[in-house]
């Protein structure tokens, strides 16, 4: 949907109603072929592709709270695939291609809006890195353009490109196919489609232990009793270290709070998504009209879904630097989620030292955009016992071999 068309609609007018019951909240059975730990976007997408692509339907998704109430409910919904390295381009672009057909595939509206993403450059080094990333993207078949400050202004008229500011905009990369989707609808769409194929959604069921016998996982202990499992697939985001620890598996993760916030509902003023690593903010305008902003993680490890206020303060000053027009907007809500960060800002997806136990974690601040892609590849990994070619580079052993996928440049604060 083009920004022009959008400007003429009442904000929120196209939000569809949804049916009362999208999935059955199931009682746990005694055993499943596959138990997925974590009912967020990744867990639900994995369940869906296990059923759809691999015919494995005796699957339970265990969620300690309510479905998609963790980071899936707390992200800033940005979707893009303009990462630097081939490995990342592979999995994120696979995800973006799936996003482009996902509403049809799931038969559910997701408000997927390819309004583009701008990644701004504020220093000569930023410019060099950005142009390099544009070239790398193009070689990988990812749409990318380098824009001058004037072209940035054309795409997003409210960005201040005057040269006198503290961090002047020297240009930006632009990925036109990037955009946003409505995160809750994405979760509900996957949950409904997976449940229709026979997957059990089990809410308020926290995993408290993993049963390991002779180096092989055989089931899970939960707050709703033990459940036997042929295979266990972890998708627990910020709590991955805790859950994997039940099987004695160490992961190179640190859990941190990550905050976001929204303004009150405003008329459409912001036609795209703008991210800036240097001044630490990323902003889009949701369909209803809120400005949605995210920033960086709190420095200290924490499992509290709540961050420090000075992070918000810096984020607001960064936003005002770029968008002076926001000066009269108000913060309506702020919130936090717990994200699991890896040393190279790339995820860990694949096998573990424990047989039949699989791990998907380490997406840090940027897991939402990957939801369809990782669900697809992780389901393949779990179903076949072999890493999908697109997630093979993200195996746990890269920290031993040294073949890291360093995406701090393309991820950084603005994942």
């Amino acid at each position, binding site marked *: 949907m083009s920004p022009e068309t959008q400007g003429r609609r009442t904000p929120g007018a196209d939000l569809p109603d949804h049916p009362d019951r999208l999935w059955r909240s199931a009682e746990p059975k005694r055993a499943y072929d596959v138990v997925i730990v974590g009912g967020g976007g990744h867990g639900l997408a994995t369940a869906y592709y296990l059923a759809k692509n691999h015919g494995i339907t005796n699957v339970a998704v265990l969620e300690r709270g309510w479905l998609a109430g963790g980071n899936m409910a707390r992200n800033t919904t940005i979707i893009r695939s303009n990462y630097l390295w081939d490995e990342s381009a592979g999995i994120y672009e696979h995800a973006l291609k799936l996003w482009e057909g996902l509403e049809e595939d799931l038969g559910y509206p997701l408000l997927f809006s390819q309004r583009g993403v701008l990644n701004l450059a504020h220093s000569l080094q930023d410019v060099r890195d950005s142009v390099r990333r544009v070239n790398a993207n193009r070689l990988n078949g990812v749409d990318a353009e380098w824009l001058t400050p004037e072209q940035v202004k054309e795409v997003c008229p409210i960005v201040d490109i005057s040269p006198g500011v503290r961090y002047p905009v020297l240009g930006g990369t632009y990925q036109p196919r990037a955009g946003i989707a409505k995160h809750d609808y994405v979760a509900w769409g996957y949950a409904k489609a997976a449940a229709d194929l026979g997957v059990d959604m089990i809410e308020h069921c926290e995993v408290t232990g993993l049963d390991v016998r002779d180096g092989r996982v055989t089931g899970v202990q939960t707050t709703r009793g033990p459940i036997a499992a042929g295979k266990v697939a972890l998708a627990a985001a910020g*709590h991955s*270290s*805790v859950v994997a620890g039940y099987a004695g598996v*160490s*992961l*190179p*993760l*640190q*859990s941190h709070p990550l905050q976001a916030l929204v303004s009150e509902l405003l008329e459409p003023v912001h036609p795209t998504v703008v991210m800036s690593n240097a001044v630490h903010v990323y902003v889009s305008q949701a369909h209803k009209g809120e400005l949605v902003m995210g920033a960086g993680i709190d*420095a*200290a*490890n*924490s*499992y*509290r879904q709540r961050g*420090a*206020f*000075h992070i918000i303060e810096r984020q607001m000053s960064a936003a005002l630097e770029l968008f002076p027009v926001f000066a009269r907007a108000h913060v309506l809500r702020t919130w936090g989620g717990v994200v*699991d960060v890896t*040393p190279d800002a790339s995820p860990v997806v694949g096998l573990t030292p424990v047989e039949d136990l699989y791990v998907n974690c380490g997406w840090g601040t940027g897991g939402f955009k990957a939801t369809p892609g990782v669900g697809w590849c992780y389901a393949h990994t779990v179903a076949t016992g072999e890493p999908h070619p697109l997630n093979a580079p993200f195996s746990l052993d890269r*920290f*031993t*071999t*040294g073949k890291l996928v360093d995406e701090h440049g393309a991820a950084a604060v603005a994942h």
Partner: protein
Amino acid sequence: MLLIPCPWCGPRDEAEFHYGGQAHVAYPEDPAALSDEEWARYLFFRDNPKGLFAERWSHTAGCRRWFNAVRDTATNEIHAVYRAGEPRPVIA
């Protein structure tokens, strides 16, 4: 924002501090003797408990000294602060 009791300066806002991650991670005595697995563990793997965690802080906007704290990552409560080189206190 955390209120962090610097062992030298007293309680100050978190914004005055720099975080240093897990405490008591010693540099290997003979790095060349490590296997790839051991080296990976030293470089990339740190504890990530939901609960008590011994961690380093530097009071960068104050006395500029490093110290350690034991904080509960589930509640953010700081149970103890102690000087670098001192053993981790036992928290009941």
